[in-house]
Structure formats: C-alpha cells, structure tokens
C-alpha cells in the first residue's frame, strides 16, 4: 500500500516537472499528462479507500531532518480521514481538469496551467497525507502558492494579479498564527509528529492556545471571518481553478486541518467554542453578503465562505463527522456549481448575472446541473447538501448551542434564497445582453464532468444519511461514532427553510409578484451588505495604509537619521580637518608660538602628573 500511497502524490509531481520542462512545446496536449496522472491517482485513491475500509492503515516515514534529539519525521499517513480526502481531491481534480480542456482551449500558457493544476493537486494530496505538522505546513503553503499562481494565471490582468496577491497575503496572515502555534506546540510537546502530539495530554489553556493559533491558519485558508476577504476576489482566476481551489480543495484544507488536529482541539472546550463561533459568524455573514452580489462567481464564492462556516460550525460544536461530511458533499455540489457557472460564463463571456437570463432553454444540461447544484446547496430535501447540513444543525442542536443552531437555520434559509435568486435570474426570464442571445451548450468535455458532478451532488449525501445508517460518519470515526437516531424535528426544520428560501426567491425573481424595489438602495442594511460589511475598507484603512505610512516613515528615518548620523560623522570629521588646518597659517612665527604654547602646557601637565609644584 505504501508504494501506491507514494505514487498518488508523486504522479502529479512528475506531471508538474514534465509539463514545466515540456509544457510549452506540448501545448494543448499537456492536459493528457496531467489528467492521466490525476486519474491514476484517483484509481489508487479508491484502492486506498477500499484498503482502509478493510481496516487497513498505512504509514510511510522517513527522517526529514534531525537535530540532536529533535527529529522531524515526514511521510505519508493513510487513515479514514485521509482516504476520504484522497478520493474527493483526486476525483474533483480529475473532473475539473477534464472540464478545463474545453474551458482553457486556446490559451497560450495552457502547459503551465496544467502544470500548476498538477502541482496544486499534489500539494493538496501531500497535505492530507501528512503525518507531521511541518510537512503539513509545507504542503499547506504549497497549496497556497499554487493557488496564488493559478489565481494570478492571467497576470496581465491587474485585477487578477491583485487578487492573487491578496489571496497570498491574507492567507499568510493566518499562517502566522499557524506558525506560532507550531512553535508553541514544539516548545511544549518537543515534537511535531502528529501521532505523538495527539497521544499527549496538555493543560486546557495550553491546548486551547495552540489550537486557536493553529485555527488561525484555518481561518486564513478556509476564508473564515475575518480573513475571508481574499476568496471572493480570487474568482479572478480561471473558473476551473475556482472550482478546484475554492470549492473542494484549498479552502477545505483549513477544515481538514481542524479535523486532523481534532484531538488537540478537543482538549480545550474554549477552542472548540471559538471554532464554532467563528464558523457561525462566517456562515451567516457570507450568506447575507451573497444576497446582494450580482457576479455569478462571487455569489458562489460567498456561498463557499458560508458553507465553510458551516463546516467549522460543525467541527466546533463537536459534530466532527458531520463537518467532514459536509466538506465531502460540498466538494461535489460546489464544484458542480462552479463548473456550471463556468459553462455559463464560457458561453456568455460575462460574469454579471444581469447580463444573462433565459439561458435555461439554450443550455439545458448546464441549467439542469446548475439547478441540481443549487438544490443541493440549498439543502433541498434528500439531496446531498440536505443530509450533511442537517447533520451539522443537528450537532449544534444536540450540543446545546441553541444560538448557533438558530443562526444556522436562518443561514440555511438565506442560502436557499440567494442561490435560487441566481438560478431564476440566469436561467429564467428573457435574455439580457447581446451574448446571451445566441449562446450554445458547451462541448462534451465540459458537459460530461457536469453530469458526473450532478449525479454526485444528487446522491453523494446518501452514504452519510440516516438511510444508510450514517455509514460515512461511522467510517470516519472508525465505527466509534455513536450511530445516532435521526432527529426528525431538525430534519424537518432544515428541509422546510430550504423550501421556504427557494419559494421566496421564486416570488421575488421567478415571478413579478413582488415589486423590484422592495428593498431600498439607501437602506443601511443593504448598503452594509453591498459593501460586504466594509471589511476590505477596514483593512485598507487600518492595516494597509498604516503599514505603508510606517514603512515610509522607517525609510525616511533610515535615510535622514541613521544614515544622516553616519554621514554627519564623516562630515564633521572633514569639517574638523578643514578647521584644524587653519592653524597652519603660513606665518612662521605663529608656528613658533604654537610650539611654545605646547611646551608650556606640557610643562604644567607633567609637573601635575608627577605631583611637583
């Protein structure tokens, strides 16, 4: 198994190296290499999953560095959590890459595109397979790096390169917490091997501090409040990238991190609480923002943020398996939504929903898949999103966090509303804008993945549903997770709010029943939402600008004061010389006088020193 495990990671790496060197020459053919690698990885992942299901665990370990008695052991670790992630990552990646063949057709840097995708996938795989926090951090940053490169793939576009920069820097801020957490962990535990760390018992304060610091990393990567600002901007990248990065993999890394470090989090109720609260805030806030967004991809982006909030919420309230389950289902339906949106954008050449309309008739497959994705996201009963979201709400309910539960429920309502707002605007009604007049369905390479994802979005939830006895959850928890009885009240509530949200959206956008100006543009809340709670502005005003100001001050200080002192010393030296040379007046008798004065001074001085006189 170890051999296969290594191959799963190495294949995309090899693909990356190959494409890095030959990518330019291979052009469009690059995709074959990349896709072959990831498909092979998928096959192996399935094999690994089956292996784990048989109760097998696997571990590769080698010493990465060794200083005195501090060994950092790297390797690959296969367990239930990993196996699930492997399958998700490789599957989504494979489908996205296939989709990209069509989407990226004709781009001059296509070789580099697939190389980056390969390496991105490899990083993500390495991340989930990490048995050591440092290795995880390396992979973590690798993911960050390639997302940076992929978001900035069209770097000629200023908005794209800005978005890439923002993504990198914002996640980096979160990583600071991660790094400090790792440092503290090392100092207290003396090791960063996960199994050793998890076997230890820490004081709650210590565990809490470390957990929260590590969670900061997750806040950055998983776009939790208040570091969520990068993710919507990251939609500047090519849509397949958005699908891969921002639906299934990169942003899930934060959730995975928390899940992976769960033994540590569990030692501190405060940390768990923190995670839950942050998750809830994020979920609600992003959902409200999504209500006013008119860019189709950004709606999806905020929905991603919101859903990630759900996952965190689940993890925070102790519904570990539910959180991961939502990650699992979300990966499919969100990838589906993104790719469908990509298909739409590909056709319309715009991301503004008000440039679209009536596309349902012209792009049947896309319309259907998008709607399926929307339904799954909204938590339409018995679709995948329904089961997982329900589990999380149930977890909140059962853990007694009633505020979180109700907010979660409210968020579910909003979710259903905003996604169907998009569905109705884009696919119903009349075409708006000249492109949407004559659009065509996307080619097969694009639609086939859509169909596969659609199927998954419909069905993937079943394996974690009470219908199958929460098979997913019990697999994840190694069978220890108590098989709980479905709570029909919660289930009913969540199903009901989903329907309610869809209905409300239909009222507002599907029909003309409600007036268009039901909410005033001057409404304070509306303004707040349209401006995304002014978080970006806040950062700019209180973080970016002051930093620049301080930097400018530091530079001025450096030039004027510190270097000024240095140059001043030199200047004074020279001045001294110029001043002192004046004693050489050219009048020889003056010289003699100086000599005499010197003599007198020396006589007095010497007599003093010897104590004479």
């Amino acid at each position: 198994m170890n051999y296969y495990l290594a191959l799963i990671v190495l294949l995309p790496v090899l693909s990356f190296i190959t494409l890095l060197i030959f990518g330019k020459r291979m052009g469009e053919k690059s995709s074959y290499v990349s896709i072959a690698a990831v498909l092979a990885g998928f096959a192996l992942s399935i094999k690994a999953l089956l292996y784990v299901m048989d109760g097998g665990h696997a571990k590769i370990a080698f010493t990465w560095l060794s200083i005195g008695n501090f060994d950092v052991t790297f390797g690959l670790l296969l367990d239930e959590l990993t196996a699930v992630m492997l399958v998700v990552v490789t599957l989504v990646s494979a489908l996205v890459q296939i989709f990209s063949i069509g989407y990226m057709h004709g781009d001059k840097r296509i070789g580099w595109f697939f190389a980056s995708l390969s390496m991105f996938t490899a990083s993500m795989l390495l991340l989930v397979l990490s048995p050591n926090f440092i290795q995880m951090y390396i992979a973590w940053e690798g993911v960050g790096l390639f997302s940076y490169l992929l978001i900035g793939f069209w770097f000629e576009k200023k908005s794209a390169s800005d978005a890439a920069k923002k993504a990198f820097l914002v996640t980096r801020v979160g990583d600071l917490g991660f790094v400090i957490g790792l440092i503290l962990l090392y100092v207290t535990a003396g090791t960063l091997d996960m199994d050793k760390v998890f076997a230890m018992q820490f004081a709650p304060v210590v565990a809490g501090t470390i957990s929260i610091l590590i969670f900061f990393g997750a806040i950055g990567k998983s776009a939790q409040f208040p570091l969520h600002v990068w993710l919507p901007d990251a939609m500047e990248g090519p849509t397949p990238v958005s699908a891969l990065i921002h639906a299934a993999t990169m942003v899930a890394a934060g959730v995975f991190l928390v899940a992976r470090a769960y033994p540590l989090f569990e030692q501190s109720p405060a940390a768990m609480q923190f995670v839950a609260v942050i998750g809830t805030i994020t979920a609600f806030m992003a959902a409200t923002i999504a209500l006013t967004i008119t860019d189709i991809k950004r709606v999806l982006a905020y929905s991603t943020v919101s859903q990630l909030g759900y996952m965190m919420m689940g993890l925070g309230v102790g519904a570990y398996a539910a959180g991961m389950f939502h990650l699992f289902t979300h990966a499919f339906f969100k990838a589906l939504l993104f790719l469908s949106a990509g298909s739409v954008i590909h056709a319309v050449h715009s991301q503004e929903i008000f440039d679209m309309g009536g596309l349902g008739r012209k792009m049947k497959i896309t319309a259907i898949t998008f709607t399926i994705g929307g339904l799954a996201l909204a938590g339409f009963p018995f679709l995948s999103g329904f089961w997982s979201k329900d589990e999380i709400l149930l977890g909140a309910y059962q853990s007694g966090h009633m505020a979180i539960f109700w907010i979660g429920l409210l968020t579910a309502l909003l979710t259903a509303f905003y996604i169907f707002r998009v569905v109705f605007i884009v696919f119903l009604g009349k075409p708006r804008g000249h492109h949407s007049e004559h659009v065509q369905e996307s080619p097969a390479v694009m639609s086939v993945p859509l169909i596969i994802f659609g199927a998954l979005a419909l069905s993937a939830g079943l394996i974690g549903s009470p219908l199958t006895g929460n098979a997913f959850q019990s697999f994840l928890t190694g069978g220890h997770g108590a098989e709980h009885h479905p709570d029909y009240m919660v289930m009913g509530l969540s199903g009901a709010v989903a329907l309610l949200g869809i209905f409300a959206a239909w009222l507002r956008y599907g029909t003309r029943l409600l007036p268009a100006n039901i909410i005033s543009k001057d409404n304070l809340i509306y303004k707040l939402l349209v401006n995304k709670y002014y978080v970006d502005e806040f950062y700019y005003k209180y973080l970016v600008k002051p930093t620049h100001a301080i930097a400018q001050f530091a530079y001025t200080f450096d030039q004027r004061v510190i270097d000024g002192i240095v140059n001043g010393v030199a200047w004074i030296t020279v001045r001294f010389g110029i001043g002192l040379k004046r004693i050489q007046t050219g009048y020889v008798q003056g010289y003699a006088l100086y000599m005499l004065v010197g003599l007198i001074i020396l006589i007095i001085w010497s007599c003093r020193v010897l104590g004479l006189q």
Partner: protein
Amino acid sequence: MIPLSYYLTLSAILFGIGLIGVLLRKNAIAILFSVEIMLNSANLNLVAFSKYITPSQASGQMFALFVMAIAAAEVAVGLAIILMIYRNMQSIDLDKLNIFKW
C-alpha cells in the same frame, strides 16, 4: 659666590628676550640676531653650570665652545638662505612668505 640661581634667572630672561625677538621681528636677519641671543643665554647656562657643578672638569665649557661653532655654521647657512630669498623676492619680510599654508 653669586648664587647659581642668579645666572639661571638671567639666562631665562635673556632667553625670553630672544624669544620675543624671534616671535615678533619681521625681518629674517633680525630673527637671526634674536636666535643668537638665545644661543648665548644657553651658553651662559653652560658656563655657569660648569663653574658651579663641575668646576674641576671643563665639560660645560667644552659644550659651550661646540655651541659657538655650531652657531657660526647656522649663521652661515641662514644668511645664505636669506640672501637667496632676498634675491628671489626683493624682501626678507616674513609676512610676505606666505605661499605655503593650510
């Protein structure tokens, strides 16, 4: 005998007078004069010491004699230089010798 300090005081005063000349006269030859005054004050010292400290030897006197010879040599060289200056600049005023400074 006259106390030694009388001689010393006198020589110091003469030395001082010579110095004043050296420092104040602007004429190079006058400075040569002043230097001679100083040299003789030193010689006075020597002879006085010879008398008071080592009357049985003549080392102080010897010294004084050598100094006289040296003084003669210096005067010769000095005068030669002054003559050359005069020839070059038609002046031996020290204040006019002011090319080299700073």
